[in-house]
Every structure is written in structure tokens, then in C-alpha cells.
């Protein structure tokens, strides 16, 4: 199976574990990822807010590069890039006038008929749970995980058309297929504070803090994410969040692809599991899941 791969800027720098674990898992699943040549930033939330036409043009330029690859489906692990590309394809498709302007700004043709999938949709639909189950040689027995979806993959529902925006279950299903014990909670799609991490850190401490405290109260061994911004906020801010409680770094935050890799029998090191601030290895060892 061959799909186009748009990693996005973060996965090249601050979220390498997400990138490498995804590539490893795909290779286990016999999926060939074809990187989009010369892709550009999607503009992220900054350009989306500051300049509508630039944001739309950046996304459209990437769509045209993907279309040139002549592969029908593109997988986009960064939830923001995913939503931005999908939203741009919809907006351009619906508006003839915009379409003409965009053709001028990107200087390339645009068909607008790509299948754009986020990581969870890709695993659920393109790969399928059966194959994931079949590849699971080391089930994550006894590991209590709490799935955290964040915002951008599911909201707004009118754009993402994916899963349930208030109570999504696609990640739950994958984790169950891997043999983990999946805990339910009410904060699956509550915001972590996203890009305010640097400019309004106190807001992120408040928002990520309540997620972490709820997950701890539920008895989770780890939070599982499919977004590098959620990972970073939840992992990096624990020192500040828990200073009052005098508990330091109590809850590992793992990418879904890292847990898939472990269940497929890949080594923790090859999945970048040693690259997080809160070390997930002790709890993984304690549950007897390290080969």
C-alpha cells in the first residue's frame, strides 16, 4: 500500500518521536510512505489568524504538490496541518472566485479531489483494525491508558467530518486492538492550550493541568495522544503544574504510534520513547511490556 506523507514542520524538529514512530509502524504494516517533495508549512494557527489569503495559499500550494505525486490519499499526522489542508480544499472547492485567486497565487493547477486523512482515520480506514490486531505480537496487557484526542482532529465537525467531536472513539478502538486497558473520561477533546504555550503559559498550565489531574484521578498509567502540540503541552509543563502538589513528573504522555510500535514488538529506542520529559520507560517496564 502506498500513501503520500505530509509530515509538517513540528515533526521535523520538536516532534521527531512522532515522526520516527509513525514511519516505523508503517513499515511494520507494509505501508509505503511517499514524502511530499518540497512541501511548505501549512501556515499553522499563526498564519490562519493573521492572513486569510496567505494561509489558504500555503495550504493550496501543498495540495497542488500532493496532487502532483499522483497518489490518491495523503496522511497527515499533525492534526492542525490535517485540518488546514482539508479545510482549504473544501473552501476552494466551494467558491469559484476564491479558486481563481488561488490559481494565481500558487501558479499551479488544483483538482481538489484528494483524500486527506489524519492519523487515526488512516489507521482505522486505510489500514484497518484487523491488520493492527494481527500485527500485535506483544499486547499491552495491563497498561491503563487514557486516550486524549485534542481539538484539531475532530473540531469543528463541519470541517473535519471525523469521528464524534465530543466523544470520539477511534483511538480507543486502536488501543483496545493493541490489548491495552482503555479508560474512559470526559476530557477527550477539551483544549490543552495549544499554541499559547509560550505566549500565555499560565493559560496552558490551567488547561493542561486539569487534563493531567483528571487523568491521574482516573488512575491512568499514561495519556495517549495523536498531536505533537498536545504531547508537548502535557509532557513539558508537568513540572510547573505539579509544583504545588510537590509531585514531579508523574504521568507519561505517549504518541499512539509509539504504543503501536511497542505492541508490534519494536524497540522503545527506535520509537523515540526515551525522548520525552516524563520518562515512560519505568511504567512500561513495571507492566512487563519491554522485551
Amino acid at each position, binding site marked *: 500500500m502506498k500513501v503520500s506523507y505530509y509530515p509538517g514542520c513540528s515533526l521535523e524538529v520538536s516532534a521527531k518521536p512522532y515522526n520516527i514512530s509513525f514511519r516505523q509502524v508503517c513499515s511494520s504494516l507494509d505501508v509505503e510512505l511517499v514524502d511530499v517533495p518540497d512541501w511548505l508549512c501549512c501556515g499553522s494557527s499563526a498564519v490562519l489568524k493573521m*492572513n486569510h489569503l496567505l494561509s489558504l495559499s500555503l495550504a493550496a500550494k501543498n495540495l497542488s504538490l500532493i496532487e502532483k505525486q499522483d497518489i490518491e490519499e495523503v496522511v497527515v499526522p499533525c492534526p492542525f496541518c490535517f485540518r488546514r489542508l482539508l479545510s482549504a480544499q473544501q473552501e476552494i472547492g466551494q467558491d469559484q472566485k476564491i479558486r481563481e485567486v488561488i490559481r494565481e497565487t500558487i501558479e499551479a493547477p488544483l483538482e481538489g479531489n484528494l483524500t486527506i486523512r489524519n492519523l487515526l482515520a488512516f489507521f482505522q480506514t486505510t489500514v484497518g483494525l484487523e491488520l493492527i490486531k494481527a500485527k500485535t505480537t506483544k499486547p499491552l496487557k495491563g497498561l491503563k491508558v487514557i486516550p486524549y484526542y485534542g481539538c*484539531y482532529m475532530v473540531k469543528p465537525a463541519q470541517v473535519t467530518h471525523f469521528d464524534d467531536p465530543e466523544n470520539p472513539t477511534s483511538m480507543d478502538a486502536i488501543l483496545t486492538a493493541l490489548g491495552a486497558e482503555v479508560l474512559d473520561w470526559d476530557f477527550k477533546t477539551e483544549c490543552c492550550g495549544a499554541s499559547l504555550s509560550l505566549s*500565555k503559559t499560565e493559560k496552558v498550565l490551567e488547561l493542561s493541568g486539569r487534563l493531567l489531574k483528571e487523568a491521574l484521578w482516573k488512575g491512568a498509567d499514561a495519556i495517549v495522544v495523536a498531536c505533537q502540540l498536545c504531547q508537548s503541552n502535557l509532557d513539558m509543563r508537568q513540572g510547573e503544574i505539579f509544583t504545588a502538589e510537590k509531585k514531579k513528573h508523574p504521568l507519561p504522555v505517549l504518541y499512539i504510534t509509539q504504543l503501536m510500535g511497542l505492541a508490534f514488538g519494536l524497540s522503545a529506542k527506535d520509537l523515540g520513547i526515551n525522548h520525552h520529559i516524563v520518562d515512560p520507560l519505568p511504567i512500561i517496564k513495571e507492566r512487563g511490556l519491554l522485551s
Partner: protein
Amino acid sequence: MLRLTGDPSERAFLNQVLQKSDQNLLECLQCGKCTAGCPIASEEVGGPRQLIAAILIGMKERALKDPTWVYCVSCGTCATRCPVEINMYAVATTLCELAEKENLIPSAPEIHLFEDLFMKSVLKYGRVQELRTVMEYNLRTFKPLKDFSQGLTLMRKGAISPFEILKGRKKNQAVSRLFSKVQQAENGK
């Protein structure tokens, strides 16, 4: 209750926002579901419902100085729950563009500064240089050691490389060309 006084300038602002954002704010019921679910709404940040009210009654200055759109992280919760499907992050973009035209310094300037540095990095390199942008932001806000310990831990573990900050990337020609075309299209409007 504040209402439009009938001054044409009020109506002009309202129309501008409606057209640019492509969101029909006139359908707003002021039900407050948006603000109830908004992660950034607080005592200081009024949230979407109040912001829409300000726009509807033509209070241009109040709307452009409202911190809600500056804080907005485009999580999409309000758009998902809104009974008339108003997308507030589209409105945030409109207000941000209008504020810039008016040379208004937005409330919460540090959020604006970060977004501005981010955009400049994209426009220069084609892909945002995350660590350089973070470093630049910290220097510009006179907190050069912000999050230093976390950064150090990540470097020690090999998760990020200090060379990412130092190494210069080449300017990206494709993004420069794209941006000049965008500017042309904007000026041609």
C-alpha cells in the same frame, strides 16, 4: 441592552466583518454555548458571545480591542456547538486583519508577537524553524531563559538538537514567490 443607533459607520463595520469572515453573525442567538465551551474565556477574556454582541452593535473599537480573538487558538469548539454554525476563528482572522490595517496594537501583544514571529519564519524559510522562533520570542520578551530547564532535558535526551537553533537554513524561494503573488492579489482587490 445596547443597540445600533443608526449611524452609518456602525453598519459599515458590521458589513465588513460579515463579508470578510463569510460568517452570518446576524443569525447569532446570543445563547452563549460558544463562550460556555470556550477554553480561553475567563474573567479577563469575554469569549465569543460578547465579541459577537460588540460586532452586531457596531462597536468597532471594542471589537478590535477584544482579547478574545487574540487568545483564540481556533480549537473549533464554538463552531461545533453553535446552533447556527458560526465559525469564530474565521471571525478572529477578519478582526486581526482589520486591526492590522488600523495599526491597532492588539490586547495581549505577546500572543500577537509570537504569531508574528512564527509567520515571519514561515515566510523566510518555507517551514517554520520552531526552535529559532522560540528563542527569538524569548529574547524579544526579555525572558531568555524561559523553559530553559525543559529545553536542556530534551537536549540531554537527544530529542532536540542545539544545532537546530544555530544552523541557518536557506531562504525558500518558493514561499517568497507565493507571498509576493498573495500581496499582488490583495492589492488588486
